[in-house]
């Protein structure tokens, strides 16, 4: 279980996250909200990239908020980025190996196993020559290798469509089962969120609009109003 209490983040006079209290109770959790709602900022707070003005973050009983980003990674926190961050002049395999180099434990999942879970079938190609989907899969494999406990993804399906998209949706849906980690996904696509996530949070102006089972959150009239743009 992940609990966020009274979390506030400000950049000067902007407050992307405003006294947010939130509890995440399922292994597949979605975060939705309009542009600028504070979704990425919340993810950055979870990974430790931004320092909150106040509030606390606990995951499975551990005080994540007190750890540096690097120690959160060693604790088992992984993430993917809104634009992929991979070393271009390394193979996909070596990119995945980086996480194992620094976060590997005794009972770690190997690079080959991680590639196999995400379906990366050409791990020996250089990242520079991979297609969008394979780059995305490489980043996910890097999140899955070792012994992750919580994986954060910022718009994992952006720029992916058709068969590749359905494949990605399937992968994300099964990811907690295959990796043993909980998954928090940001996406604008309500369809993706409802196929992947058991529970979902809707944010707007850095505050909670709704939180609960995905179908309940999506049915909430305020979500329909603020996010889907339809007036109730």
């Amino acid at each position, binding site marked *: 279980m992940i609990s966020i209490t009274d979390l506030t983040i400000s950049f000067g006079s902007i407050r992307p996250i405003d006294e947010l209290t939130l509890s995440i109770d399922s292994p597949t959790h979605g975060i939705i909200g309009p542009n600028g709602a504070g979704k990425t900022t919340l993810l950055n707070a979870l990974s*430790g990239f931004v320092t909150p003005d106040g509030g606390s973050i606990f995951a499975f009983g551990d005080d994540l908020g007190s750890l540096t980003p690097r120690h959160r990674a060693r604790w088992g926190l992984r993430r993917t980025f809104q634009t992929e961050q991979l*070393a271009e002049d*390394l193979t996909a395999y070596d990119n995945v190996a980086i996480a194992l180099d620094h*976060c590997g434990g005794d009972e770690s999942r190997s690079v080959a*196993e991680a590639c196999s879970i995400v*379906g990366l079938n050409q791990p020996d190609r250089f990242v520079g020559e991979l297609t969008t989907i394979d780059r995305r899969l490489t980043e996910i494999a890097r999140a899955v290798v070792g012994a992750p406990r919580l994986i954060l993804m910022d718009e994992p399906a952006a720029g992916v469509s058709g068969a590749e998209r359905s494949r990605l949706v399937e992968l994300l849906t099964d990811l907690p089962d295959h990796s043993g980690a909980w998954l928090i996904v940001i996406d604008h696509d309500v369809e993706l969120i409802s196929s992947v996530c058991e529970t979902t949070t809707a944010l707007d102006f850095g505050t909670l609009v709704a939180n609960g089972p995905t179908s309940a959150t999506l049915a909430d009239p305020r979500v329909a109003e603020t996010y889907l743009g339809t007036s109730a």
Partner: protein
Amino acid sequence: MTSESVSTDPVSAESVEATRTSRASVIGRGRHVFLLGTVITLLAWWVPNYFGARWLSTWTSTLVFAMAAAGIGLLYSRLGLASLTQVALIGVGGWVALRLEFAFHLPFPIVVLASGTITALIGLAISLPTLRLSGLYLALVTLMMAAGFHEIFIAAGFPNGGSGFLGYQSSGDLERMSRPSIATTDPAYFRLVLIVAVACFLLVWLHDSTKPGRAWRLIAQSEGAAHATGINVTFYKTWAFTLAAFLAGIGGAMFAGQLGQLGPSSFQTIDSLLLFGLVLVGGAYHWSGWIIGVIIFKAFPALLDDLGLNGNIATMIAGLALILNLIAAPRGIVGEVGRLIAANRKSSESDQ
């Protein structure tokens, strides 16, 4: 709608490992080692036999500076860091070697390793405050350090058997660094420097193809992503800078052995800058580019000299080459050659 890159069959971990071992096959690697060994043996035999004393000396110092150039190429290509102080660090390594030699008369290998280690520690001390800087600021600060070292070399002189900590005397019985008994002659010493240079490049390769190399590349891509992957960013940046200083220090000790005595004019600020620029011209992203860069740095002025031209023209031409390089071929000579080969291969594949 199907896509080639998305397999419908699940990939098993075993098949992932299988494709890897077939590509990085033991035979393939063995062939590389054999080829490289042959080339090195041929150079060791041919260069001292073919070239006269003056050119042999040029090639020997080319190898010395190649050790420092490896540090430049490593920092630039893997971490995107511009270190403009590497030639000055050769001077530091040389100073330490002379100092240790005259004070303790230690065996040659120990002097060389100790000089490398002490220079590495100095590099470490420099890196801790400076690596927080980025881009242009790091370049400027390291260039100022090169100038600072040069001033210190002028003020203190290089040890030559004098008394006191500095060990410098302006007259009297000037001592020379002695070479190891197996390599007292110039041809033998060339071969020794060749072996040491190869060892230095292997050390870089060893780092580059394992955990540190992978970490450096992700740090260069994004420090944020590196932190989020558990990498200790400061540690790995410092490590790279320290390794580069170690290589320059080893080079300095070998240089002291080559020349016997050293002087500040061999380690001018402009040399640090020029060597950096020429490593970029040669191609910072591949070790062969570092070697091409250092050959232009050392052998080109000697060639102009042979032709009766002023050596300063070399600096001007190097400057022009650097400008051309930045505009037309940012991955250097080696990068361009690689691109041509790849393009050729592609067109011959599409012909079939």
